């Protein structure tokens, strides 16, 4: 690590001025749980480090009109304990609670998880399923972009050198809508996700699936949606039969995508079970 200068701004504008000035030579640090490792392993380098963990406005969870907004600097511990997210957003809480260990959750942030864009990032699938939108600040002002468009490849995001992720927001869930999350990890405490699935569901008055969004982690180069399976479910009742066919479809999708990888066999088998549990949680959640 060759770090020459460090800053601890307390305002978003200050952070952006610093980013604008130092450009490529600088890196943002939030919880540091991804960045410190890659700096020490020499995978990334930065001579200037800008710590955003003292910026208060990045640490809030709020409701604005019918959107829920989570600040980029909110830690997973804070997500797990957030009053506003209890019950109806159990899918998000489950995802946050599944990250690392207490020490990791106390430091690791939502923004770091998104910007690091690891294929195994656990908070990305539920946010994809919620069709989350990111709010990004730069020297030219504020812009918004869908999370789905923001992640361009494994570890790659559509963020300029002088931009900062400020918050992520999604539409509030209504009574007939639900979110479910399920993860299969290797070891409980520190499992970097091997497979995780999140399902958003909207049920119509006649108990059919009106809309569904499925997002997986660790089943591709980054967290991604499963549109073929989503389309299959739309307009159908959710019975053990349709769920079986749907999960079979998912297995085929995953199999095609992972072909040739040593983990393909295990993953395509496991994904059915992981998905079915996540879907059932979403069904339950849509009744709250």
């Amino acid at each position, binding site marked *: 690590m*060759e770090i020459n200068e460090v800053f601890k701004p307390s305002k978003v504008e200050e952070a952006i001025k610093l980013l604008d000035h130092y450009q490529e030579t600088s890196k943002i640090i939030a919880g*540091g749980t991804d960045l410190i490792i890659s700096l020490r392993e020499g995978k990334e380098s930065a001579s200037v480090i800008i710590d955003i963990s003292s910026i208060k406005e990045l640490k809030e969870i709020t409701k604005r009109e019918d959107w829920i907004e989570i600040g980029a600097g909110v830690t997973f511990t804070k997500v797990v304990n957030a009053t506003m997210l209890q019950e109806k957003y159990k899918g998000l809480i489950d995802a946050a609670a599944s990250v*690392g260990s207490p*020490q*990791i959750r106390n*430091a690791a942030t939502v923004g770091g998880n998104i910007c690091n864009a690891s294929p195994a990032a656990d908070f990305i699938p539920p946010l994809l399923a919620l069709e989350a939108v990111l709010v990004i600040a730069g020297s030219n002002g504020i812009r918004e972009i869908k999370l789905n468009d923001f992640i361009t490849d494994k570890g790659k995001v559509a963020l300029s050198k002088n931009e900062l992720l400020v918050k992520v927001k999604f539409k509030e869930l209504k009574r007939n809508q639900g979110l479910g999350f399920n993860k299969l990890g290797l070891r409980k405490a520190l499992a970097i996700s091997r497979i995780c699935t999140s399902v958003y569901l909207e049920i119509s008055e006649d108990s059919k699936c009106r809309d569904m969004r499925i997002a997986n982690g660790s089943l591709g180069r980054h967290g991604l949606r499963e549109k073929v399976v989503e389309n299959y479910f739309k307009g159908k009742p959710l019975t053990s039969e349709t769920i079986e066919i749907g999960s079979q479809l998912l297995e085929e999708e995953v199999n095609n995508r992972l072909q040739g990888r040593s983990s393909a066999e295990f993953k395509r088998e496991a994904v059915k079970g992981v998905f079915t549990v996540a879907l059932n949680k979403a069904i339950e959640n849509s009744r709250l």
Partner: protein
Amino acid sequence: MKKIALNINGEEYVVDINEDMRLIDLLRDKLHFTGTKEGCGEGECGACTVIMDGETVNSCMVLAFQAEGREIITIEGVGNGEALHPIQKAFLEEGAVQCGFCIPGMVLSAKALLDKKPAPTRNEIREGISGNLCRCTGYNKIVDAIDKASKYLKEEGETK
């Protein structure tokens, strides 16, 4: 070089740090709080656990400058230097310590847990120490010790 001020175990420190120093380097090499151990150096083992503003963090994953203005508790700040803290007492009584390398981190994770949740279930205890690896004890005695410590702390609270 940069000067930062921080509070460690209740005392104010103003220290010169290098920009690329981690909190664990500051604590061990500069200030000689050598109870904080470095195991993996990558967030997996928890041997370097300290309490920062009431929450446990791995000090190998925090840069020293980030600790500016924060309150840190290391194992040296648990107990008062003469009498053992009830958690330490329970660890000894239950035989929860073998080589000892993981113990400072374990005790701090236990403290952070009991500060927030005075009467945890055994599952909650396991979850609370899930970021601390121990290669010796098999964890059961550590869980017993934390369970016992929670009773000691309750009694202490009642007699106060």
